[in-house]
């Protein structure tokens, strides 16, 4: 069975596939054309606080490293920090929580992106069909709802539009609770960017989870790229 479930954390551990740090993953997907939330890296708690001031509050701070695939599960994410002092304190805690096996770590600071809707998108490998582009409804109920659809990579912009149409939760993509409709052209460009990444034989999977829809724009606030072999 291919590893195509929206939440693949358990499988990743089993397969021991090397992952890239969030910072590295963000750079890779942003270069391919995915809209990602703005962010900065920091080595120390003080630098983190400075970066937060530049980016604007509130922010999220995460501990980041190539060996850390599951930040949330390990409590390595601090959300909605509203001033420099709380950023510095949180950053110090996170650095202290690093384990020896985590290797080189740093901090990732990113402004909080707000929106009522979350999507997930990614690249997955299927045993029979090879690399597929995936799009689904995200958020805390994502697994229960199970609204996810696939296309073979590479896909055309038309395939991407039809992939979006395949989601059952179409009302979620329209104007919703005072927010404008999801910008389908942005979503198409994200799916096409994933398709471009699929051409790289070294990339095993990509997980954009979640894409938060803010003012109609789906923005990746986390990214995780699995690679075939560890990259330096």
């Amino acid at each position, binding site marked *: 069975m291919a590893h195509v479930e929206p939440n693949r954390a358990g499988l990743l551990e089993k397969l021991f596939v090397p992952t890239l740090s969030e910072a590295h993953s963000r750079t890779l997907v942003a270069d391919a054309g995915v809209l990602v939330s703005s962010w900065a890296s920091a080595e120390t708690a003080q630098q983190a606080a400075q970066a937060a001031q530049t980016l604007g509050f509130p922010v999220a701070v995460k501990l980041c490293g190539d060996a850390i695939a599951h930040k949330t599960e390990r409590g390595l994410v601090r959300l909605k920090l509203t001033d420099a002092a709380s950023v510095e304190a949180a950053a110090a805690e996170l650095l202290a929580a690093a384990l020896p096996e985590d290797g080189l770590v740093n901090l990732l600071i990113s402004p909080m992106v707000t929106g009522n809707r979350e999507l997930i998108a990614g690249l997955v490998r299927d045993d029979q069909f090879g690399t597929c582009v995936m799009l689904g409804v995200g958020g805390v109920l994502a697994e229960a709802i199970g609204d996810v659809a696939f*296309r073979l990579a590479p896909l055309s912009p038309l395939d991407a539009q039809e992939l979006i149409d395949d989601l059952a939760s179409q009302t979620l993509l329209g104007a919703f609770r005072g927010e404008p409709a999801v910008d389908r052209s942005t979503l198409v460009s994200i799916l096409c960017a994933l398709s471009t990444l699929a051409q790289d034989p070294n990339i095993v999977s990509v997980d954009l989870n979640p894409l938060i829809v803010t003012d109609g724009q789906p923005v990746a606030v986390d990214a995780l790229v699995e690679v075939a072999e560890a990259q330096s």
Partner: protein
Amino acid sequence: MTRNLSPLFEPSGVVVAGVSSHPGKFGFVVLHNLLSCGYQGQIFALGRSAGTLLDQPVIASLDEVPQDAAELLVVCTPPDANEELLRAAAARGIKAVFMVTGGYSEAGPEGAKAEARIVALANDLGLVLAGPNGQGLVSPPVGLCAQIVAPYPPLGRIGVASQSGNFVSAFENYATQTGIGISRAVSAGNAAATSLADYLEWFADDPETDVALCYIEGLKDGRAFAERVRKITPHLPVVVVKGGATSGGQKAAASHTGSLATNDRVFDGVARQAGLVRAATIESAFEAAATLATQPLPLGGQTLVLTTAGGWGVITADAITRHRRLNLAPLPKDLQASIDQLLPPRWSRNNPVDFAGGETRDTIPEILNLAAAHPDIDAIVQLGLGIQGNTAALTRLGPFYPDHGLERIVDFHERQERRYAEAAAEASSKHHTPVLVASEIAATDPRNPMVQAVKDSGRLCYASADRAVEALGHLVSYAQWRNARR
């Protein structure tokens, strides 16, 4: 490159190897069926010893087949005889082999080795090899019935390739019932050398085939299948049913054909991307194929319901509204004005167009024609036909027939039913608009003159409005996929 399967489906002559005098044996049944369905080419019965069978000489050696007199060999002999048989057959000019024989890869590792040998041998000899472990094939354009099962279906435009022989029979049963016939049907068996994609590619070039219908259980290389099939679907609609869509079905498939599990949502996405029409059930797959074979392709999903039965209209409006590919079309103002001229004011003046009993002799054909011609209407579902035919049937069987003017009214009702069905087909053909006639009477009384007339018009009379809507959804879905890529 498309493999040449003509020797399989249009052979100059056929040799049946392993004929038997026992009417229960495959070798007997194949010969019987070949001799019984109108095949015009030469037929040779190859047995263990010379004699006669079914008034046909039995030969004991392929040497007795004149050079190049037969292109197809149907094999019912056991595995250990078959390598020698293939060599001898190729030497006589045989080009294609359908291997009914079982005991190959489906039977275990030894069988798998024998299968690999027979595939390699067929390749060396330049033979098309279908099967093994298949139920055979039919090719009605040339009267060829080389199968160990029944029925022999009527001639039509649907090409069937199936990984389950029983589903070949199932589709042939539906073809026989509905009159929507078959161009070619083949049981792929173990598909050792000739795969579903090979058959589909040949169907795409086959002038006798307009639609392909396919049962898939497992694919050796899903990606390759998808790449090949997406080159076919712009020219030839391909309807698929996929076995093993759930974990329960996957376990069953693993023991049936040894198929690997596929994530069903991945397959669903692949199917949409490749333009495959994916149906959920065997019955729905046949009806989708029959619809693609007999109705024009619509431009979109704006659907109009015409009905003489109010309740059916409401239920059908629900089914259309629920369907993601279909819309209940807003009734165009000019069409409403035209219908106002033809019906008393109590008609629905909305979609569904419910005649509310106001129709007279010519109303249904006239409104059908107006609606089919309207540019804002992509497709029509016609309901409520057959009622007059039902009334006629009861009257005809009652104690008062033919007196009291009953003969005349029964004739009128039956004539009208035929007219309605003919008008639906004519309006559809003339204006290139699908018109699907649906009535439960198609199932409950197939002798109803409306049902008969729909069949005579070469179209499917859908056994319920819901099934018509489902089939129309498949038709629209395929049309939209194709139109978007032109």
